[in-house]
Every structure is written in structure tokens, then in C-alpha cells.
């Protein structure tokens, strides 16, 4: 991804304040609530019957944290997202069979969650930087699909 120096530093400064467990859980939870068809990958997660059940589901929270921690790793390798996510890309294609459209959906939900948590601090400039990153990560995760 092509980020200016300012974008990179803004992005990193915000990420330092992110509670990966909280935000990861909320992002994944909201994905499952707002786009219920995404639940197709998580039938083994137990009760996803109501928005409340989803948001409080411990498996959702745990998995959300895992996903966001991985995303956070990606932020350290913005010059080589494809390389960084190569193995995960193969996994999502060959084992998990996840349509890459879902990465784009989750990326945008993450942006909305960051906006909710950081309010005014999540300026249009910061959003722009994060939109570039979520698009880059989504593309990287789709890169090894065949």
C-alpha cells in the first residue's frame, strides 16, 4: 500500500491505543450481526441467534481478537502485505473456503468500529489511511486464491 509518512505515523499512533481484544471482538461481532450470512463460517460457535448473543459470545470475542492481532501484525509490514499474509491466504482458500468479499466487509466494519471508539479523533485523513490498509490486507488475503 502507498501511504504517506503522515498517514503511516497517524495510523500507528492510533493503533497504539487500540484494545485488540475489545475492538477485535466488536468488529467480528458486528460483521455477524450486520451481515448475517457471514455466520455461515461460524456454525460451530454456538449461540448467534440474537445481536446480544453474538456480541457476548466468548468464541466470537476470542476469534475477533485473533483476527485483529493478525491485522495488527500486518501494520508492521505495510510494504509487504502479500508476503506477510501469504500463508493465511492459502489457509483461507484451501481450508476455510472463505469468499474474499468477506475480507472487504470485515475491513469496512473495522473502520466503522474505529470511528465509534475514537470519534472526532478518527479524522477523514485517518480514515483514508485505514481504508488503504484494510483494502491492502483484503487483497493480500485473496492473493493466493486459486
Amino acid at each position: 500500500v502507498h501511504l504517506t509518512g503522515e498517514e503511516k505515523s497517524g495510523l500507528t499512533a492510533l493503533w497504539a491505543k487500540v484494545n485488540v481484544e475489545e475492538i477485535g471482538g466488536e468488529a467480528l461481532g458486528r460483521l455477524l450481526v450486520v451481515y448475517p450470512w457471514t455466520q455461515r463460517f461460524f456454525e460451530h460457535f454456538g449461540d448467534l441467534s440474537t445481536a446480544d448473543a453474538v456480541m457476548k459470545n466468548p468464541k466470537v470475542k476470542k476469534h475477533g481478537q485473533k483476527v485483529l492481532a493478525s491485522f495488527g501484525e500486518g501494520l508492521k509490514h505495510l510494504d509487504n502485505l502479500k508476503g506477510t499474509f501469504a500463508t493465511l491466504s492459502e489457509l483461507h482458500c484451501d481450508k476455510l473456503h472463505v469468499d474474499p468479499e468477506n475480507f472487504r466487509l470485515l475491513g469496512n466494519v473495522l473502520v466503522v468500529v474505529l470511528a465509534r471508539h475514537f470519534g472526532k479523533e478518527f479524522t477523514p485523513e485517518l480514515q483514508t489511511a485505514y481504508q488503504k490498509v484494510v483494502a491492502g490486507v483484503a487483497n493480500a488475503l485473496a492473493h493466493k486464491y486459486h
Partner: protein
Amino acid sequence: MVLSPADKTNIKAAWAKVGNHAADFGAEALERMFMSFPSTKTYFSHFDLGHNSTQVKGHGKKVADALTKAVGHLDTLPDALSDLSDLHAHKLRVDPVNFKLLSHCLLVTLAAHLPGDFTPPVHASLDKFLASVSTVLTSKYR
């Protein structure tokens, strides 16, 4: 996609919270969209798109007023938005992909300004609402 009674309640409650910030939120959503998704600027080559642009503020108000009208006519969206639908189909011809981009930026704006009200169910209802409006606005394209 159908708006359930619960969706309609959520949408109306959320929009009431927006109150007289609607025009500001509309303008902010546009600013976010132009910055995050530069291709959207191609429809506004005749606008000053700088920060605090009067034209963007004016257009944000237009968008917000249309959404306010839509909120008041959730059961009859195609009818209420018919003129706007004609406008987008025959004059503006904005590619359908762009409605998703503006909708997303509207959600980001609402989330940033109304964090406590923007619960997951409300988020879901508003996403459906904006998708419904987008569908109506592109319904006469061909």
C-alpha cells in the same frame, strides 16, 4: 431486502438523535468519501472540494434532507424518492458502486458522532436503510 418493524424503529430513533446535525453529517460523510475513495470526486469536477467547501456543505445538506425524507416514508420509499430516482438514472448517472461508498462513509460519520446510540442492531438497521435507499435511487438505471 425488507425493513422489519424493528429496523424502522431503529432508523427513526437514530435519525431523531441526528437531529439538526443532519446537514453537517451529510457534509462530513461526503468529505470522508472524497478523501477515502478519490474516484468519487470524478462526479464533482465542477465543485471546490477543499476542506470546509461551501459547495460540499450545500450538497451535504441536500443528501441529508433526502435521507430525512426517506426516514419519514420508510413504507413508501420508491414513491417518496421517485424524482431523485429519475434524476440519478437520467441525469446524474452515478455508477451504482458509489452508493455503497457514500453509505459506508455515512455509517462511519454516525458511528463517530453517536457512539452510544450506534449499537449493533442500529448499525444493522441503518446499513439496510441506506442499501434500500441506494436500490431505489438506481432502480430506473435500465
